[in-house]
C-alpha cells in the first residue's frame, strides 16, 4: 500500500501517475473489429424486439447490430444517430443493464445479453472517428428557436431543430457545452474528452449558435427569449443541491458530490485532485456511486457510501452497486445521517439505522470522515418559470409547458427517469413538436 494512502486529511497525490492512469482508463475497453463481429453475431434479430421497446430513444437495435454484422457499421451508426444524436455518449453511460440489455432475449434465456451498449459505441465511434456527420440540414425556415442548456436535452433538441432548418441559439451557463456529459459523469465513462468531441461533431449540422456562460435568470431572462425568438426550449439542469439538514453541514470537508465530479472531470492532473483518507458519500443514486468510486480511484483509503433506504430502493443500478463494491467501496444501507462531529473540519459522521419506512431504530454508527460528499438529490432553481409539477416544470408528452411557445425537457422537466438517454428523447421529441407548431402542423 502506498504510504500516501494513509495520510490523514484531504491530500493530493496519493497515488503514482501510473496508478491514476490505470484507475481512470476507459471502464470498458472499446470492442475491436473481431470482438464486434462476434458480439453482433449473437443477436437474433428479434421481431418487435424487446430491446428496442426498452430504449427511451427507440433505437432500432436489431437493425444496427445486423448492419455491424454485415460489415456496414457506418450504416449502423446512422441507424443509431437518427434516433439518438448523442448515441455515442449513451453507449458509454446508459444503464443498459436496466434498459435494452436487461430485456435482451439472450439475457432472459442465458443470463448473457448481446453487448448492445458496446456495439453501439463501436458503430458510433467508428463514424465519428472519420469526422463524418451523416445528416444534412434542411433549407432554412427563418424560424428562430432559443434552447437553454447545452446538456443532453438541449443538444438533442438543438440538433433536431437545426436539421429541420430552424436557426437555433443555444445558451449555456457553464464554460463548456455538454451539461452533465461534460461535468457530471464519472471520468472513466467518458475518457479522452469524448463529451467535448461529441458536441463539436454534433454542431457540424450547422445552424446552431452557442453562447456559453449565459445563465437563465442572470444574463438573460425568459421574457427576453420569448420576445426575441419564435420558440423557447428549456433544457437546463438542476442547479441546487439538497443539504443534509444537520448542524455542521457546512463544516470544512463537506461538499457536494456534483461539484467533486465536475472538478474531477475538468482536472488536467489527477494527482492534483485532493481526496480524503476516510471518505463518506451520502446518497444512493448514480451521483453517489460516481463520487464514491472516483474517491476510491483517487486513492482514498476508506470510502463508504451510506443510503437511508434499502439496496433495492437505490437509484443506482445493481450493476453500478457492484462496480462500486468491486472497487472497494463499502455500501451501508438503511442508515440516515443524524450528526456531524468534529472541532473545525469534519471528523466523523453519525448515522442512525432505520427501517424501510425510515423509522429510526435507535441504533447508531459513527464513521470516520475527513471528507463527506452530499449526493441526496438536486433541485430546480429559477423564478418565473412555467407551471411546476412537484418541483419541476410541468410538461406534456411532447414537452410543451403551461406557457405557449415554451417547451421543456431533461432534468428540469417533470417525469421520466433522470437519464442521459431520457433527456435526449425528450429534447428530440420537443423539437419535433416545436417544428410542427412553427410550421403550422407541416412537418
Amino acid at each position, binding site marked *: 500500500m502506498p504510504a500516501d494512502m494513509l495520510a490523514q486529511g484531504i491530500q493530493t497525490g496519493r497515488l503514482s501517475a501510473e496508478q491514476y492512469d490505470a484507475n481512470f482508463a476507459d471502464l470498458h475497453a472499446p470492442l475491436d473489429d473481431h470482438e464486434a463481429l462476434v458480439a453482433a*453475431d449473437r443477436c437474433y*434479430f428479434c421481431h418487435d424486439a424487446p430491446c428496442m421497446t426498452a430504449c427511451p430513444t427507440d433505437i432500432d437495435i436489431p437493425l444496427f447490430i*445486423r*448492419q455491424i454484422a*454485415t*460489415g456496414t457499421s*457506418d*450504416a449502423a451508426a446512422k441507424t443509431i444517430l437518427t434516433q439518438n444524436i448523442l448515441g455515442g455518449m449513451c453507449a458509454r453511460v446508459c444503464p443498459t443493464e436496466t434498459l435494452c440489455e436487461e430485456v435482451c432475449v439472450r439475457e432472459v434465456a442465458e443470463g448473457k445479453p448481446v453487448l448492445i451498449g458496446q456495439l453501439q459505441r463501436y458503430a458510433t465511434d467508428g463514424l465519428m472517428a472519420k469526422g463524418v456527420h451523416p445528416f444534412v440540414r434542411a433549407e432554412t425556415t427563418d424560424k428562430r428557436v432559443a434552447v437553454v442548456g447545452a446538456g443532453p436535452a438541449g443538444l438533442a433538441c438543438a440538433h433536431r431543430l437545426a436539421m429541420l432548418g430552424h436557426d437555433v441559439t443555444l445558451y449555456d451557463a457553464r464554460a463548456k457545452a455538454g451539461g452533465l456529459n461534460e461535468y457530471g459523469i464519472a471520468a472513466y465513462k467518458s475518457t479522452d474528452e469524448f463529451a467535448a468531441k461529441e458536441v463539436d461533431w454534433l454542431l457540424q449540422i450547422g445552424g446552431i449558435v452557442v453562447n456559453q456562460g449565459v445563465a437563465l435568470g442572470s444574463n438573460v431572462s425568459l421574457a427576453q427569449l420569448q420576445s426575441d425568438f419564435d420558440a423557447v426550449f428549456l433544457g437546463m439542469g438542476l442547479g441546487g443541491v439538497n443539504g443534509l439538514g444537520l448542524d455542521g453541514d457546512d463544516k470544512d470537508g463537506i461538499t457536494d458530490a456534483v461539484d467533486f465530479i465536475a472538478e474531477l472531470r475538468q482536472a488536467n492532473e489527477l494527482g492534483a485532485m485532493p481526496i480524503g483518507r476516510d471518505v463518506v458519500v451520502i446518497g444512493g443514486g448514480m451521483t453517489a456511486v460516481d463520487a464514491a468510486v472516483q474517491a476510491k480511484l483517487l486513492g482514498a483509503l476508506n470510502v463508504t457510501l451510506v443510503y437511508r433506504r434499502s439496496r433495492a430502493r437505490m437509484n443506482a443500478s445493481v450493476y453500478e452497486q457492484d462496480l462500486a463494491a468491486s472497487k472497494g467501496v463499502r455500501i451501508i444501507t438503511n442508515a440516515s445521517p443524524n450528526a456531524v462531529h468534529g472541532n473545525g473540519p469534519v471528523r466523523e459522521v453519525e448515522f442512525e439505522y432505520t427501517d424501510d419506512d425510515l423509522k429510526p431504530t435507535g441504533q447508531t454508527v459513527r464513521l470516520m470522515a475527513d471528507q463527506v460528499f452530499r449526493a441526496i438529490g438536486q433541485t430546480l432553481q429559477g423564478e418565473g418559470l412555467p407551471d411546476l409539477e412537484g418541483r419541476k416544470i410541468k410538461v406534456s408528452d411532447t414537452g410543451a409547458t403551461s406557457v405557449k411557445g415554451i417547451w421543456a425537457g431533461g432534468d428540469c422537466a417533470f417525469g421520466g427517469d433522470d437519464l442521459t438517454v431520457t433527456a435526449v428523447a425528450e429534447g428530440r421529441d420537443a423539437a419535433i413538436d416545436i417544428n410542427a407548431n412553427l410550421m403550422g402542423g407541416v412537418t
Partner: protein
Amino acid sequence: MVDLTTTFIGITSPNPFWLASAPPTDKEYNVRRAFEAGWGGVVWKTLGSEGPPVVNVNGPRYGAIYGADRRLLGLNNIELITDRDLFTNLEEIKRVKADYPDRAIIVSLMVPCEEEAWKAILPLVEDTGADGIELNFGCPHGMSERGMGAAVGQVPEYIEMVTRWCKRYYSKPVIVKLTPNITDVRKPAAAARAGGADAVSLINTINSITSVNLDSMSPEPSIDGKGTHGGYCGPAVKPIAMSMVSEIARAEATAGMPISGIGGVTTWRDAAEFMALGCGNVQVCTAAMTYGFKIVQEMISGLSQWMDEKGYENTTDFVGMAVPNTTDWQYLNLNYIAKAKIDQDLCISCGRCFAACEDTSHQAIAMSEDRVFSVIDAECVACNLCVNVCPVENCITMEQMPVGAVDPRTDRVVDKDYANWTTHPNNPSATAAE
C-alpha cells in the same frame, strides 16, 4: 445517397431486392406487408391452372440445417405451388399492383406442358396488370412427379417450347426460372433464350434430404413416418447458385442475357456478389422466412453504403463486373506465387492452422514449444486452408511474392509474366508460349 432504383428487363423497382416466388408471396396480406417493409418487388407464389387447387401435406413442410448457435444455414421444403383458388390469387394480384404501381409484381406460373393450358391462363394474368411472368421450371418435389416444374426444366426442348407459347400469348416480359437439378445449367438457359425469354432466374431449390431421424428411421421432414426429398435453399446453396449464374453469364450462347439471381441471398453483400456475377437483381426467400420482411432494411442500407464508398451511382454500374474475371482453371496464372503469413499479434494460438496443414496439407506450419505458429515458406503452396480454418479474421493472410523474389519452395524466381496451363511444359497438349 445513391439511388437503388433498378430496371430489370424494363421493369423498374425502387431497389433490386425482390421476394422470390415462395410461401412469403402466397397472398395479398403478405405482399402488402412486404412492400410496406421496403421490398422492391415480389414474384407471386406460383399459380396453377383453373380448377381445384393442389393440396399440401398437413405435417411438417420444412427441414433445416443449422450452424453454430442454431443459425439456420439451409432450409428444405416440400410445399407445392399455391393451394389457393386461381381467381382469388388473380384478384389479389390486381388489387395489390394497383395500390403499389412503383413496385414490381411478377406472377409465377406452372401449368401442364400443353399449349392450351398456357393459352388459357396467360390472358388472365395479363389482366391483373402484373409486370411480367416467371415460369416455374424448377420446383423439384411433388409437381415434378406430375410432369411440371423441374420435370420441364430438365428438358431444354420443353423449356424452349413453353417459353415460345408464353411469348405468343402474353405481351409482357417472360422470365424462365431454372432448376439446379441438372448437369449443365447453360443448356436450359440457352433453350430459354431460344424460346424468346427476356431473362432467366436461378437457382430454384436443390433436391435434398436435410436429416434422418435415427429413432423412426425416417427422413425429415417426416410425414407419418415417411419423408421425401425437398428443395434446398438458404445461405448454404449460395455458392452453388453463384457458380451456375456465372456459367450462364459467361457462356457464349447465353452471355448478356438478363439474370435474376436467387439462392441464399441473406445480406447486402450476397446481393452485390450475385449482381457482380451478372445478375440485374436478386430474389430472396429464406432470409425473409428466417428473419421477417424487415431484413430488407439491412440489404438496402448496406448496398447503399457500399455503393457510396465505391462511387457507384446506379446498380447497373457494377452489374457483371466480376464476369470477365470468372474464367476456366486452365487460364489461371501459374506464375502468381503467394505464401501464407500469420499475424502474431492477432494469433490466439489455437493451433487449428497447424493441425490442418500438418495432418492434411503440406506440413508448412511450424509450432514452437510455447505455441507460436509460423509459416515455413519452403513448404507453403498457398493453398489457403489455414486461412479458411483460422477462427480469427485476417490473422492469416496470403501474401503475393514480388516479381524477382525467389520462391524458397521451388528455388525459382517469381516471373513477371502471366503463364497458364495451356502453355505449361508439363501439359502434354501445351501450345508453345508466344
